[in-house]
């Protein structure tokens, strides 16, 4: 796993102390691939992209990231699968890979 400083250089974007993108508009699919690897996800499958694209679209529309409940209800990827796709803590992993800030919600 790279340090945040190393990642900043590699991606050439601004990151916060925990490695989340500061500006969601800096996000590209290539950045998503690299951040996914950092999170221990070797390859982003179509199902991963279904989640990521939903989250990006939702953010564009609402100005805030969706809750995990909203993701599982509306992206077509149910809870069990979401936890398999993004193991050990999907909330932060999904937000980080999708280029959004650290999630603050409770649900």
């Amino acid at each position, binding site marked *: 796993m790279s340090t945040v400083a190393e990642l900043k250089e590699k991606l050439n974007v601004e990151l916060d102390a925990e490695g989340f993108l500061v500006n969601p508009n800096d996000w590209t699919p290539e950045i998503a691939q690299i951040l996914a690897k950092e999170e221990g996800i070797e390859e982003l499958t179509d199902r991963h992209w279904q989640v990521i694209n939903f989250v990006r679209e939702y953010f564009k529309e609402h100005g805030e990231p969706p809750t995990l*409940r*909203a993701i599982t209800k509306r992206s077509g990827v149910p809870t069990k699968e979401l936890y398999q796709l993004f193991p050990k*803590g999907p909330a932060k992993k999904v937000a980080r890979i999708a280029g959004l800030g650290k999630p603050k919600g409770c*649900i």
Partner: protein
Amino acid sequence: MAEEKTRTLAIICSKGSLDMAYPGLVLANAARMLGLEVKLFFTFWGMDIITKSKVDHLKVTPVGNPAMHMPNLVGVIPGTTDLATAMMKKSLEKIDMPPVAEFLEMIHDAGAEIYACRMAADMMNLDREDLVDEVDDIVGAMEFLEMTEGAQMLFI
């Protein structure tokens, strides 16, 4: 990289009113979203939360509930409990909190383990088939303490 030991949260839910059902469920879900291991133990009135015939009918009662900011005398007027319950359910839906039955399904799908207290089940004459499908097992207090050794423990 060395394998980190996963943090475990054990939550004991002992109350069965609608307002006391949510704290445990919300914390369990939040913990799973962060990647913590979660084990819940339902006991005493908390059994209502995982009992098929009760789970959709939990209520919040204004009587003796100082958080409602309402004189107890008002709380005893017929219909006040139903009104308070309906209002709370509406507020929960607005902030994207699922109803209790759906919440149980959600945290179970998310990998939280759900246990019923053997003593409470015996006391209330509840069998496995009286409990919601998400219940993993009916266990004794000692067994639960054994399986949550080293965990952080919450009593609600």
